[in-house]
């Protein structure tokens, strides 16, 4: 079917959508909240990025749509869309200066008008200025859409990169050397020169990467197997070396964030087997996380006299195997009755199971054993030789080892007979059974492996905090882990890491906007599902499922897919 040719009316429609979005984020106070955070010091604030980012995004979407069916409309479409999006905040600004809307919209303050409208005074002229600015951005974007795709991608990536570098100033000032910091950053945001230099550097780097990558890959592929293996070994060692010094680079606060990300990566690896490989939707994954954490806590705490009378107090290493074993057993026990059900039923049952576990640890009846609502304190920490991991920087290492083990196991399982059987179950249960695959048995293996990894994550989590309360084990944890898989890319191992950094790390780093955390979270998920359903770092199979038309003929063999770098 041939798509309907693009009309300017479409640009107007998209402009209106964008305009409504801008109005909405202004009225809920996001623009105001973000106006304090500088991206480029004193010139471009986060609020600018938000408003103009939306203008640019809408204009870009419209231009590329026009480009697909009616090339000559690409630039006009950008201009129209850009100015219409800008028209909305302009009108809103004017409206606020004339009428007091605060009875209904708390955030529609005079300051908001100041923020929205450029110039000193808030009048028709400044509103016009804003619309013109919008159309100028639209023009720029329309022209950008005409630029060859590769260069365009590099420019867009560089722009996004600069914004991220400004936004995550707190992270980067800690990591980079002092001399760089003085050049790149000011008190609130990047320095103007730094921003320009970064933009140019990032564009060149990205462009070079895009051009050079296929060639390098080709060259690597031509190397004899032995050299290729050696190269892979060197790369792995360098990465491990970098990871080993990471806590020192990051400092205490960022190490704390890294630890949290790491625990979610371990859980993500586990759930990836269940949902990504075998296609079993488990919404109660937090249960196994809680079981791992509580096993660790109950076995190692000096409190809980009832338990201590029966079981001696263990240290971290003695308790860890039990934590894993009990998570594994509970995975099997839950799995046996549940895994005969399909799809939706499985999701509901696991959801219920997650709640049951939370309510059990919260209950007064089990308080002598599980600590009740007050939780348990004095959980043991891992100790090697003379060193006990107490602070987040030290705790990074046990978590890192956990991630490496989880990665190793999942990567090996994925390309084995088990991985293939899970794939078959995910694709077509009936046919999988007709191939002789014991559905319950293989689902159980996926479920139990996932549960054990969640238990590992839980044990590390409990030990890292040193204490735990039932509130840490609510359904949001399950949702978070599932969402990070979706954002990273179902079934993809690097995707788990990317997803965890994006969904767990970023909100931790951007605490100042925590008010809007869940709102943005929802928007990101919806946007991902519409524009990039395969995730940020997709798995090859999933990519093909979702983009049938582009999926074309030969792909690399399983071995190569395993180690291949990011698809463009």
């Amino acid at each position, binding site marked *: 079917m041939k798509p309907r040719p693009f009309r300017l009316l479409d640009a107007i429609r998209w402009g209106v959508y964008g305009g409504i979005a801008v109005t909405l984020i202004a009225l809920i106070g996001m623009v105001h909240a973000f106006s304090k955070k500088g991206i480029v010091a004193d010139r471009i604030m986060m609020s600018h990025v938000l408003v103009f980012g939306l203008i640019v995004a809408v204009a870009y979407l419209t231009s590329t749509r026009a480009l697909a069916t009616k090339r000559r409309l690409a630039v006009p479409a950008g201009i129209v869309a850009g100015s219409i999006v800008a028209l909305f905040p302009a009108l809103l600004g004017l409206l606020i200066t004339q009428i007091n809307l605060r009875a209904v919209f708390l955030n529609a303050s005079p300051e908001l008008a100041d923020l929205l409208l450029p110039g000193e005074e808030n009048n028709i002229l400044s509103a016009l200025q804003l619309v013109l600015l919008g159309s100028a951005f639209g023009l720029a974007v329309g022209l950008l859409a005409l630029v060859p795709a590769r260069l365009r991608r590099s420019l867009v990536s560089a722009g996004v990169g600069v914004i991220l570098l400004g936004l995550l100033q707190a992270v980067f000032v800690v990591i980079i050397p002092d001399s760089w910091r003085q050049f790149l950053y000011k008190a609130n945001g990047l320095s103007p020169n730094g921003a320009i230099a970064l933009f140019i550097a990032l564009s060149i780097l990205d462009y070079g990467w895009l051009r050079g990558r296929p060639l390098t890959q080709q060259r690597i592929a031509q190397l004899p197997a032995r050299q290729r293996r050696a190269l892979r070994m060197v790369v792995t060692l360098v990465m491990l070396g970098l990871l080993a010094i990471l806590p020192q680079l990051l400092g205490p606060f960022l190490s704390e964030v890294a630890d949290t990300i790491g625990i979610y990566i371990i859980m993500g690896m586990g759930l990836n087997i269940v949902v990504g490989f075998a296609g079993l939707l488990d919404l109660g994954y937090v249960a196994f996380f809680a079981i791992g954490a509580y096993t660790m806590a109950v076995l190692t705490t000096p409190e809980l006299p009832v338990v201590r009378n029966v079981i001696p107090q263990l240290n971290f290493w003695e308790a860890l195997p039990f934590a894993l074993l009990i998570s594994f057993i509970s995975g099997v026990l839950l799995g046996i009755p549940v895994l005969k059900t399909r799809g939706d039923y499985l999701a509901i049952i696991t959801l219920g199971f997650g709640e049951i576990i939370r309510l059990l640890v919260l209950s007064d009846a089990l308080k002598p054993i599980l600590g009740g609502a007050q939780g348990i304190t004095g959980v043991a920490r891992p100790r090697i030789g003379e060193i006990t991991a107490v602070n987040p920087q030290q705790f990074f290492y046990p978590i890192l080892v956990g991630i490496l083990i989880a990665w190793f196991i999942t990567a090996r399982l994925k390309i*084995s007979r*088990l991985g293939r059987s899970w794939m078959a179950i995910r694709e*077509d249960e009936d046919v999988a*059974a007709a*191939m002789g695959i014991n*559905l319950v048995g293989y689902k159980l293996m996926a479920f139990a*492996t996932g549960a054990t990894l969640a238990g590992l994550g839980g044990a590390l989590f409990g030990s890292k905090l040193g204490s735990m309360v039932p509130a840490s084990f609510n359904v949001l944890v399950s949702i978070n882990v599932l969402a990070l898989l979706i954002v990273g890319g179902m079934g993809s191992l690097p995707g788990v890491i990317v997803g965890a950094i994006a969904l767990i790390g970023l909100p931790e780093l951007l605490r100042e906007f925590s008010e809007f955390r869940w709102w943005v979270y929802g928007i990101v998920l919806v946007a991902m599902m519409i524009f990039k359903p395969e995730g940020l770092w997709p798995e090859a199979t999933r990519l093909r499922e979702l983009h049938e038309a582009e999926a074309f003929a030969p792909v*690399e063999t399983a071995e190569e897919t395993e180690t291949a770098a990011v698809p463009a």
Partner: protein
Amino acid sequence: MTQNHNHILVAHKVSKRFGGLQALTDLDIAVAFHAIHSVIGPNGAGKTTFFNCITGFYKPEEGEILFRGQPIQGMPPDRVAGLGIARTYQNIRLFANVTVLENVLVGMHRRLHTGWFGAVLRTPAARREERNAVKEAMELLRFVELADKADYIAKNLPYGEQRRLEIARALAGKPDLLLLDEPTAGMNPKETEDTMALIQRLREDMGITILLIEHDMRVVMNISDIITVLDFGKKIAEGDPLAIRTNPQVIEAYLGRGAAAGRDYGAKTTAAVEG
């Protein structure tokens, strides 16, 4: 039963109901070793239901199905497959999003043994098994002339090749009995010709017994040793192609009562079903 010595599969008085619908009634079919045995009948006659009863997807209410003398009715599908019964589907059901090779490797499942620890530790035994499996899968793909497309995504293959891949996947389990559900449906005459040759080679070269559902009478009459005709879930006739071709009951089932009175039955049956 006495037939067991000559027959790989025996269905005895098999009945299957869906609510009020009687899909199969007291069906008796005996499939001889190394036979190409066809099951034909008008739409809704219960042919695919019979396949599903054999492979364990349906549990017949009455009767028994013996595979090499062992009762298999009501056995779960994976165990039936494990005994050496493989099948293909009327509407092709490949693992569409993975490679051709991976499809065949999944088909090999029942003959491989690597478990959780073998896979994670990649023991020498697991590695050897995997290497051999790939080698064998490639041989199978050569057999169905798909070796050069091993790395293609299954859903990108043309229709005829998807059918062949489905057969290769079924063969990968080294079955003794292969159930083919309309293997030539939707094929052009050339592809049909090739598929017929392939089916005959399965019997001659690999010694596999074939149970076949087919609508194309040219195929059925050409390659079958014996044909069973179903109508409304009952067996109405059985015999070699010549006997079936001239059986008045068969012609009636296909053409209605009036036609049975006419002459030259064979030609009419063929024409009616092909058209």
